[in-house]
């Protein structure tokens, strides 16, 4: 399950849609909007995406995760638009028979999302706003 959404991310709904009787573990990673960055107080964030390519990359990451780790399925959902402090901007949910691969797949997937998916965040401070660029 790979989605971009402008609505709040419903973790329970993602987990329920992925989970099957043969699964023994569900691991969830949530990325949250933090109130500080680069020694500055952050008021809120805005995310934008090159949506057609971002969806394609989310799916590629999921396929790779399923082939490289012993998970049965994975969901990756990234939210776009305005987000206040504390809300979930990205969620990864991995389901598997045993916990180890699900933890590892979540770590792999969030690292890959941050590295290759064409999504950008803009940080809004008291005195302005800046587009953040990755490495």
């Amino acid at each position: 399950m790979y989605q971009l959404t402008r609505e709040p991310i419903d973790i329970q709904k993602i987990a329920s849609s992925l989970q099957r009787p043969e699964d023994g573990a569900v691991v969830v990673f949530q990325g949250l909007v933090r109130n500080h960055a680069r020694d500055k107080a952050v008021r809120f964030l805005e995310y934008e995406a090159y949506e057609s390519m971002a969806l394609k990359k989310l799916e590629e990451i999921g396929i790779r995760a399923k082939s490289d780790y012993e998970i049965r399925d994975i969901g990756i959902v990234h939210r776009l638009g305005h987000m206040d402090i504390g809300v979930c901007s990205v969620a990864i949910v991995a389901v598997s028979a045993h916990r180890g691969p699900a933890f590892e797949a979540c770590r792999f997937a969030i690292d890959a999302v941050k590295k290759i998916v064409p999504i950008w965040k803009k940080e809004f401070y008291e005195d302005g706003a800046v587009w953040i660029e990755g490495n």
Partner: protein
Amino acid sequence: MSVRVFFFAALADITGMREIRMDLSGATDVISVFNRLAADFPLLEAHRSSVLFALNSEYARPESPVREGDEIAFFPPVSGG
């Protein structure tokens, strides 16, 4: 030939638009399209060393050839998550 060009994040702020249709003459590549845009929008030069290219929703290289109907995108290093 006609192509569609997309800009994102700081690059969209510089050009003031998200999308433009461009008519190109003769064989060309991704970096040539960027060069032509940088001539019109000099502030793009500040991003030359870091800009990423995509052709039809896949990462491309500066020398990737551009064809009729292609969708080209220019954007900064990604920062989602």
